């Protein structure tokens, strides 16, 4: 087991390097000259001399690979440079400022997803093809099809404007996290209900369920202890990916709800061409994906005895 974990971690390192290289290359592939952009965002007329001075300041006059290495060296020490827009703020500072708000939003969403999707999915699987199941299937279909910015506007219109029980946006008033968290979780709820339900239905036709019934176990025990447990295996993979998706998928929601998180930071950096922040964001999300993948693999390995040839008993 330990050997497996060490091997997985060792594989993850070159992958992270590859991600860092992609993050670096992507930004450099943008046709605009970063020096000129850095000037233009500060409303400085980009004359040739000023551009030259800025290229030197940003180190753009050095060879490509050398620039990558020096950037990587800085990144390892968590020095992502300074923002183009707010020269006095470091990229690291900006990210650590925005991250807690997004973490709060994403974790509440995750909790809502788990609390809502599990009971519904189990119910749907047990009472397959009942009215409830059909109704939920329709809702899932609608839920995955509606773009979440539209759901957001509808929810704000209803709960803020008409009922007046929640604030429209922001982070300062009480309860302001509820609407963004609910909106963010809707798509995932639809996905998970479908995933768990189908897995459970599939598992119910397995031989072990048949034998459990033969053994005279209660239906409730079979569903919860055997079917659900076995169905959750594939959910863990999905859940691991969802954690990152929740963090990176807050862009639209954070903008609509004026939520001061990492998604807002990312989108405003894209609009302002604040390349150092965009670069750090790409890198961070890439590494998060790798880490979550790693954790999911390890958890899988631990949970599923078949994967490490362990003792089935």
């Amino acid at each position, binding site marked *: 087991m330990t050997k497996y974990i060490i091997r997985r971690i060792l594989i993850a390192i070159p992958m992270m390097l590859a991600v860092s290289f992609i993050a670096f290359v992507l930004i450099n592939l943008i046709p605009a000259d970063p020096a000129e952009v850095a000037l233009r*965002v500060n409303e400085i007329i980009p004359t040739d001399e000023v551009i030259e001075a800025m290229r030197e300041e940003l180190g753009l006059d050095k060879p490509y690979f050398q620039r990558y290495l020096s950037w990587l060296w800085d990144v390892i020490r968590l020095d992502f440079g300074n923002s183009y827009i707010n*020269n006095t703020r470091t990229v690291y500072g900006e990210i650590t400022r925005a991250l807690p708000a997004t973490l709060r939003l994403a974790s509440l969403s995750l909790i809502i997803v788990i*609390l809502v999707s599990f009971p519904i999915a189990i119910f749907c699987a047990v009472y397959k093809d009942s009215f409830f199941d059909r109704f939920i299937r329709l809702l899932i279909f609608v839920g995955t099809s509606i773009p979440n910015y539209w759901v957001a506007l509808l929810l704000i219109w209803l709960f803020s404007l008409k009922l007046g029980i929640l604030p429209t946006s922001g982070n*300062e008033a009480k309860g302001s996290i509820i609407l963004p968290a609910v909106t963010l979780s809707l798509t995932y709820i639809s996905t998970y209900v479908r995933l768990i339900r189908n897995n459970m239905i599939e598992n119910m036709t397995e031989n072990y369920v048949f034998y459990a019934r033969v053994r005279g176990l209660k239906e409730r025990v079979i569903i*919860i*202890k055997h079917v659900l447990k076995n169905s959750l295996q594939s959910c863990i993979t999905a859940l691991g990916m969802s954690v990152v998706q929740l963090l990176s998928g807050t862009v639209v929601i954070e903008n*609509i709800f*004026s939520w001061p998180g990492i998604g807002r930071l990312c989108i405003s950096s894209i609009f302002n*061409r604040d390349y150092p922040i965009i670069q750090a964001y790409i890198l961070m999300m890439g590494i998060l994906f790798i880490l979550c993948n790693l954790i999911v693999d390890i958890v899988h390995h631990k949970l599923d005895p078949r994967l490490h040839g362990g003792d089935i008993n």
Partner: protein
Amino acid sequence: MFLRHKAIRIVFIGLILIGLLIGCSPGGEENTDTVKSENNSENPPSINTEELVYANFRDIRDLNPHIYSGELFAQNLLFEGLVKITEDGVIPWLAKDWDISEDGKAYTFYLRQDVSFTDGYKFDAQAVKANFDAIYDNKDRHTWLELIRLLEGFEVVDDYTFRIKLTKPYYPLLTEMALTRPFRFISPNCMIDGTTKDGVDGLIGTGAYVLTENHIDEYAIFDVNENYWGEKPSIKRIIAKVIPDNQIRTLALEKGEIDILYGTNMIDADTYSKFDKMDGFEVTISDPVSTRMLIFNTTDEVLGDLAVRQAISHAVNKAEISEGIFQGLESPADTIFSKKIPYCNVDLAPYEYSVEKAQEILDNSGWIVNDNTKIRKKNGLALEVDMYYNSNNVTEKTISEYLQSELMKIGVKINILGEEEQSYEDRMKNGDFDITFNISWGTPYDPQSFLGAMRMPVYGDYEAQQGLDEKQKIDDSILKALTVTDERERQELYDYILTTLHEEAVYLPLTYQRNRAVFSDKVKNVTFNPSQFEIPFEKMYIK
């Protein structure tokens, strides 16, 4: 099994509790910028007659008055200049008076003696000099201002007298001194080693408000400066919330979470007309502040022909653009600058909308309609041009599509091409276009700064005008108009520049942009300053 159930129940209850804890915890504290704070309230207090909630589409960012990355409305609240632009022209502010030497090269400012920065630092000639030193130390960033290029020196004459010397006389000096940046004064205590270019250590000005709290990307609180030297504003506290989404700003105003929306980029035509009809809200609109226009590239084979430029100018129905696209929020424009702009009240015959006239001009100059393609041709050259627009700009796209269909009626084929902002700007700068959009810089930069920039290859204007025989004369006249001291001569130079550009039809003015505000009807006296980037909060009151 029972235990299992119990365990699951405990986990679920735990999750609910965590959820509630997260849901109810007021956020924001960890994102707080450390600002000298007298009020540590976590939430903005409820609305009262002394408090105004304003919404902006982005954070106030870095308010250092000597650089360009902060929000102008906020910089205006904190920092003041020597002079101020009003409808009656330039008036005293931190300078109570000034003299201009006969040759127009030396400006002597007599400072007010009753002013202090909010940290207690005395505002005097030394403080002014410290600020000028800091600004001049970073002069590369300010070269867009002719004043910086012409600056020969500045000196402290006595405790409350400060003098600026120029290499050439320059009449817009006072206008440029009145701009929100960079000639505004920050307490020398906030400078780092006597400079401001690498950041400042505090945001202390002499203004009517002080920044009390700043929660990045959430809201900022400005409280009235209790020791303000001038008349204290009626509104004691301004809360500037950040709401990036246009629709949410509108909903927040409707719900009463905010009191006012202000500015051209904050209020679209739909929002304006919606609140115009709604009870409990008011709207107001300013005089023209800037001009939306097209630039024709005179170096192009087709557009190099004056007849083509004039014919297109006659074929565009500006009234329809004004009503149909802007719902009357922008008024039709006949000239590059509105007649209300200084020096721009020049008698010019507008290119009246007439399809017949446009066709006649083209017929007479040898552009004949091809019966098959319906596109005109002259000496084998088709009357076909490329028009570029910024694809992020919905209005420009709509106007392009409208013009494409309209101009086809006179046998002119327009290929419209939307481009991403950065490429669009690069193309404009390099003059790599036939027709493109342009917006004048607006008051108080018009006409002098906008015209001044035509002389340098930094915007599309320079390249687009290269096909004009009189380009050199136009450039010389612009420079002369900026430096001549005789008022009549200056007006004559502007007459020449504006008339030539108009007759040569290099620009096709479409509409005049107007500043606007939408607000709750409890907010009174919402007005506009001559500078479109200022918001006169100090004149507003709540009733």
